[in-house]
């Protein structure tokens, strides 16, 4: 089959710096090509170069032949929309907030002179129906803010497909979505590729998504091609060392973990925690109550890693914050070593705070930009102990070494460090005052996979060497699989399933857990699955009931 799009030696330069450096590939009809890479690999720039949407100062070179014209040459305008469509990562910002869905769907049809207004409307509704949006007539009159993230991404896909492009570029189309929604959008994209026989360029950082979708894989690093070949081959026998390290770093949900411990000494008990937020709807005014936690109880055993897993809005972060007493619950108790933390206030509270520390998701905002990292790390100690300057320096040096950084970095400021290093510094601060519990809220989800693996290792090592207990909050089941002893699955403010990691992953008892496990992408193309289970809206969310030893399920 002759190629739809044929790219040779594509390069993008910003000033003298090459962002993309000599990329070549072919794309045929009905093919899914995945461009994979970590941040800064130039994968998004490649897409922008093909669309002619580069930032003003960037220049593209090389050839990208599509339909007899070179997309990269400056002479001809790229056939945007009608020839090549583009889907962005963030569905929340990809639609103009002040225009109706209907207008945004039809305007390009009219502007390209493809059909008249009546026909455009008819086609738009048909397309909405095709991408799985219920009640197209109603949706046409809606504004973007009235749709959920997944629905918006469907609208964007519909918007692009209406123009009947030959090639569709999707830049991280599911990264901002929950796994269950991601699965639906990926299904939709695959179906469109088959039905319309278009070529799809899927740009992603997620090896699981690649394995599920791609026919061909192009691995990029620092603007260069590391590997290019059929998906099965790339996963089974990667030629480049980089691909191999990337694959090794990816946490596997289907991996076998032998972690299991019998300790049942309870460190922390959360009883009947309820928390409602006044939700500000639609940016302004209007208070609606939103129940973040609905009568949740949870025990954490000394020395274990307990993972809280859930999609956005499940209440997992709120529960972590309540336990660290950063959020005040409406009702409920948190007992640490048997004494209630919730009744404390003022200085008593400050004194007890050292026992529960937190690591946050965003490595950039986690450190005070105006303090040296040494000061940041030693802060919990200074608050609780009188230390001489010498002691302080020794402590900082020791902590930095524990998290794998050099002791002489103490005098530097946060902006001199990479995301992964910053997260290490944040971990050093969390363990500085010898806490009994560390709450880590998505500590690796802002990091590239290769760095994620190392930070996870660090957390696990420290848990053992420092006698820590870890409450690990994550949306990523594969990460949880790798680090957790026990897992609590949350949804809409309730715990639906709680059990030892091994049995929960091997024999999930709750239908929601099963659904989550089913839709999570696995980085193994040989494990392609058939029809996915429909994600139903209502799951049993009643009281927990012990179905197997230490394995509880909501009924």
């Amino acid at each position, binding site marked *: 089959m002759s190629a739809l799009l044929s790219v040779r030696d594509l390069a993008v330069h910003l000033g003298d710096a090459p962002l993309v450096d000599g990329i070549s590939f072919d794309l045929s009809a009905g093919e899914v090509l995945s461009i994979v890479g970590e941040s800064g690999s130039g994968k998004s720039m490649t897409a922008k170069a093909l669309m002619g949407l580069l930032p003003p100062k960037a220049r593209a070179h090389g050839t990208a032949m599509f339909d007899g014209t070179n997309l990269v040459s400056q002479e001809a305008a790229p056939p945007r929309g009608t020839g090549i469509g583009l889907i962005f990562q963030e569905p929340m910002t990809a639609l103009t907030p002040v225009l109706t869905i209907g207008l945004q769907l039809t305007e390009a049809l009219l502007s390209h002179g493809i059909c008249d207004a009546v026909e455009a409307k008819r086609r738009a509704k048909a397309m909405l129906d095709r991408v799985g949006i219920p009640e197209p007539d109603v949706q046409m009159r809606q504004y973007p803010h009235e749709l959920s993230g997944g629905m918006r991404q469907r609208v964007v896909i519909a918007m692009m497909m209406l123009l009947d492009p030959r090639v569709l570029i999707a830049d991280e189309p599911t990264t901002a979505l929950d796994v269950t929604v991601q699965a639906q959008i990926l299904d939709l994209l695959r179906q469109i590729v088959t039905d319309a026989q278009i070529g799809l360029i899927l740009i992603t950082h997620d090896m699981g998504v690649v394995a599920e979708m791609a026919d061909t894989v192009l691995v990029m690093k620092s603007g260069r091609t590391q590997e290019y070949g059929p998906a099965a081959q790339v996963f089974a026998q990667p030629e480049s060392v980089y691909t191999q390290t990337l694959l090794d770093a990816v946490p596997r949900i289907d991996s076998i973990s032998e972690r299991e411990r019998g300790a049942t000494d309870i460190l922390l008990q959360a009883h009947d925690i309820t928390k409602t937020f006044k939700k500000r709807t639609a940016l302004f005014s209007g208070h609606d109550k939103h129940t973040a936690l609905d009568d949740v109880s949870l025990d954490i055993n000394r020395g274990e890693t307990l993972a809280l897993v859930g999609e956005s809005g499940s209440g997992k972060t709120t529960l972590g914050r309540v336990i*660290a007493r*950063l959020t005040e619950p409406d009702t409920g108790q948190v007992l640490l070593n048997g004494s209630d933390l919730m009744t404390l206030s003022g200085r008593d509270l400050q004194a007890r705070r*050292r026992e529960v*520390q937190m690591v946050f998701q*965003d490595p950039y*905002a986690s450190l005070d930009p105006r303090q040296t990292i040494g000061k940041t790390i030693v802060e919990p100690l200074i*608050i609780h102990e009188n230390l001489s300057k010498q002691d302080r320096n020794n402590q900082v040096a020791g902590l930095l070494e524990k998290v794998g950084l050099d002791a002489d970095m103490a005098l530097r400021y946060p902006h001199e460090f990479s995301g992964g290093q910053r997260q290490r510094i*944040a971990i050093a601060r969390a363990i500085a005052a010898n806490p009994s519990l560390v709450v880590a809220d998505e500590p690796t989800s802002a990091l590239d996979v290769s760095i994620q693996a190392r930070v996870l290792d660090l957390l696990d090592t420290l848990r053992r060497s420092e006698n820590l207990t870890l409450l690990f909050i994550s949306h990523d089941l594969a990460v949880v699989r790798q680090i957790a002893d026990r897992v609590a699955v949350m949804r809409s403010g309730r715990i639906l399933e709680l059990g030892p990691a091994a049995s929960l992953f091997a024999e999930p008892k709750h239908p929601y857990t099963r659904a989550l496990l089913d839709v999570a992408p696995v980085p193994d193309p040989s494990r392609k699955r058939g029809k996915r289970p429909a994600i139903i809206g209502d799951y049993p969310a009643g009281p927990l009931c012990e179905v197997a030893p230490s394995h509880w399920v909501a009924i």
Partner: protein
Amino acid sequence: MAAVRQTPPGFWRRLLSSPSGVIGLAIVVLLVICAAFAEMLAPFSPTKMGAGGRFLPPGDKHLLGTDEFGRDMFSRIIFGARVTLLIGAVAVGISLTLGMAVGMIAAFRRGWVEAILMRGTDVLFSFTETLIALSFVAVLGPSLQNAVIAVGVAGIPFYARTCYSAALVETSKPYFEASVAAGAGPVRLLLAHLLPNVLPTMIVVATLGVSTAILAAAGLSFLGLGAQPPTSEWGYMLAGSRDYINRAPWLMTIPGLAIALTVLGFNLLGDGLRTSLDPVERK
């Protein structure tokens, strides 16, 4: 306060490589020199009448001419710089300290303290600075001192709001919460974390605010509600020029130009500071 002392890396290089920063800084430095060494720079006393004749146009002896009382305009402008800078500094000082106190406490304490402080600020803000300043002068009576207090007080709501929103952003950042979780007390949180992190924003706001304050005070003086004779205040000088606008137009152009340049200087410096104080986070 070691943390406050520290300027972001490359601050001076960035400030001096932005055209607005350089021009602004140059104008402000020139003003400060004029104000500091007014006695040495001015050839005549700013208040001595009949130094060389009335309404002399700009020329050799009197660089910028003389006014209706024969006072040397150049000397009056030089001394006016001192008055103007003083006005700007005091007024902004009042707005900045009180505004920051209100804003930081509101963002830090939350709850009803926040509600009362910020709703009150909103109400005052909607009055606009002009009305607040005018009401103050109406109560206290026209004088330069009262005008400066009025302008300073009138600015509080704006500074409070700006500081409040900046502080709110900081208090919700993980580094701040990490300190809370570590058991840091209010003093430490406010002085070691919140203050150093809102300060860059507030320095920019205050620099731009100097121009607003100078304009407002000059406006009051222009209306006769601020500086009283024989003070060499530019707004007041401008007001006096109206009666001789045909006969001696330089009496109008020169003080006006002085105010405009001063305000421009602080505006440019503020713009320059804004870009150079931006912490170099994420790209």
